[in-house]
């Protein structure tokens, strides 16, 4: 497979360069040339208006997927408690289903979990596939993958969303391999778009960070179904549906202990230290600009006055001032509070990756050039050790604080 560029016909318009996802084209002396990053994907061939690009790739046929319908969500549960991420995904699934004019289904597996169906319905499931079996009491990879594989093959969904939790990330790749479909991990955005390559059929656009969050990539799955994606907790928003009337489809799986190959010996709960910042309405976050533990005590006062929680950057965790569970960012938590107050935080891309879903962002930093200001609604250039006490003072003066 090769791509050729006819240098005489190239007018250096750069369209091919822009469309190339792999930086496989570079402009040299005003004409496009193929670089060694080229993967022969052929994206450039179509956009060249001078027809200067040719290739020997035979276009891959897109199979007929008209039988595949519906947006599915895996409803993760442990010990009879639903994981929030499943409910969040139902919210997103509704949006996608509306754009596709299809319905939303939840897949619920476990033992004695029928009681959870109401919650799934309220959060947006039109249909619930309820799979109960003693062998599904606890999550075990092969058992759950077997069930999911059978369901997908029998009911042929078009989209399957799974939470990017420890459990979801263990299960999703195995299911994707089984059903022969692509899987995009840790998506931050999902939308339905018309695919020009496949005569206007509607496909799922899956956007995720790549290269350590330095760039975003939009990925499509044209050649297999279901289109599978995982999404981290806290990224999507729950919705509540009125006039609930979900159909429950009960399924008895055929499982054998002998096929499962693993045994759970013990589960030790270690409650995460501190509070859950992903649920907070207000977050006061501190970075290296905050002086030591006392500085964080000051931020804690502000957080308390606003009924919020304290969070921090990675450097603060590394310095041992706060626990890992309070870290916001790419390698920490994704949060989306109504108000995020960033105090003495520079706004490195890895930090921003975890807080951009916040409704309002406020930045306080001595350096007017700090990147955090670019992503803030309101910024104050100043010393946090002066501004925050002033905020505390003004808030405390008011009688109406609840």
């Amino acid at each position, binding site marked *: 497979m090769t791509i050729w560029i006819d240098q005489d016909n190239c007018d250096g318009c750069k369209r091919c360069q822009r469309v190339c996802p792999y930086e496989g084209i570079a402009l040299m002396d005003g004409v496009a040339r193929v670089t060694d990053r080229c993967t022969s994907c052929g994206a450039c061939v179509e956009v060249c208006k001078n027809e200067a690009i040719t290739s020997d790739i035979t276009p891959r046929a897109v199979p007929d997927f008209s039988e595949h319908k519906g947006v599915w969500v895996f409803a993760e549960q442990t010990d009879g408690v639903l994981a929030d991420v499943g409910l969040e995904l139902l919210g997103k699934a509704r949006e996608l289903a509306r754009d596709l004019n299809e319905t939303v289904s939840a897949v619920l597996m476990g033992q004695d979990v029928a009681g959870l169906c109401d919650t799934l319905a309220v959060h947006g499931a039109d249909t619930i596939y309820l799979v109960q079996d003693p062998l599904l009491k606890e999550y075990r990879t092969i058992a759950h993958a077997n069930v999911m594989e059978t369901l997908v093959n029998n009911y042929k969904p078009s989209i399957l969303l799974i939470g990017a939790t*420890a459990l979801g990330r263990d299960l999703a790749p195995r299911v994707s391999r089984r059903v022969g479909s692509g899987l995009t991990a840790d998506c931050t955005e999902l939308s339905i778009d018309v695919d020009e390559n496949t005569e206007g059929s509607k496909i799922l656009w899956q956007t995720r960070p790549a290269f350590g969050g*330095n*760039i975003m990539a939009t990925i499509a799955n044209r050649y297999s179904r279901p289109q599978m994606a995982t999404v981290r907790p806290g990224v999507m928003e729950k919705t509540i549906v009125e006039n609930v009337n979900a159909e429950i489809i009960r399924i008895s799986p055929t499982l054998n202990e002998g096929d499962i190959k693993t045994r759970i010996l013990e*589960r030790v709960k270690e*409650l995460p230290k501190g509070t859950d910042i992903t649920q907070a309405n*207000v977050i006061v976050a501190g970075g290296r600009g905050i002086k030591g533990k006392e500085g964080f005590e000051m931020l804690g006062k502000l957080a308390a006055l606003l009924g919020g929680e304290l969070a921090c950057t990675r450097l603060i965790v590394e310095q041992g001032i706060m626990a890992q569970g309070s870290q916001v960012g790419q390698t920490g938590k994704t949060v989306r509070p109504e108000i995020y107050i960033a105090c003495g935080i520079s706004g490195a891309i890895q930090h921003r990756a975890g807080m951009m879903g916040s409704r309002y962002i406020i930045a306080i930093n001595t350096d007017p050039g700090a990147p955090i200001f670019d992503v803030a609604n309101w910024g104050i*250039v100043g010393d946090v050790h002066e501004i925050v006490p*002033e905020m505390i003072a003004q808030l405390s003066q008011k009688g109406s604080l609840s």
Partner: protein
Amino acid sequence: MKLVVLVKQVPNTTRVKLDPKTGNLIREGLESIVNPDDLHALEAALGIKEETGGTVTALSMGPPQAVDALTQAIGMGADKGILLCDRAFAGADTWATSLTLSRAIRKLGEVDLIICGHQAIDGDTAQIGPQVADWLGLAQATYVKEIEHLTPADPDKPGKPGEIIVKRRLENGVERLACQLPALVTVIKELNQPRYAHMERLITACTDKADILVWNAADIGVNTCDVGLEGSNTHVIKTFTPNFKRQKEILEGSRQEVVAELFDRLKKSDTTLSGKFQGRPS
């Protein structure tokens, strides 16, 4: 014990620089390293080898220069390296990558344990391990933070498989899991402290004497249409620099003024919390 470790060469994304004008990634001069989690996988395999005996094979799919990752693995103590290298493998998504890796493992014959990193820092997908396990029909344990115990299958007791007992790190606790061998485990950094490469071994590993094989698509018996970009179901349709910019209104004035201004903005905003900012002091 026959152990296989999957190692990937990745760009050091912690040192990534963006072109300030175009916002594109500057790839030139980006150093390549062994994926950090994979060093922990190697350490685990070498530890098991020291205890129970056996061989450690490091396996990687990548461009010709990925041989450096195998050199480092041998430097640390792996017995041999295999590089899966073919132009047909380029542009693979995780489905095609896992197919390629699992075919190579099959070619190695009976393997007791495959160890890989939890995730690679260039893609962060954490999919390869479970997918390889699935191609091979093996049990898996992901997020492994401790390998407690390992009993190889006893040839005197046919039908009774060996077992590995691990501790897995989950969001809200730890799970102890017994997994039938052969199995695949993916490991996290908490597991161990990787050793440094041994200088002498490293030097030999860099010469032609090093036990490093290079296999192409034909060697592992895959059709080129099933691997690489052609065998992939997912494709990147565009990449872009995230644009997170907001209005960036910088409030000016004295300390009292800026804070009062800020609270005024919040009070007038549509947050459900605007009530908290009522009664602005004079």
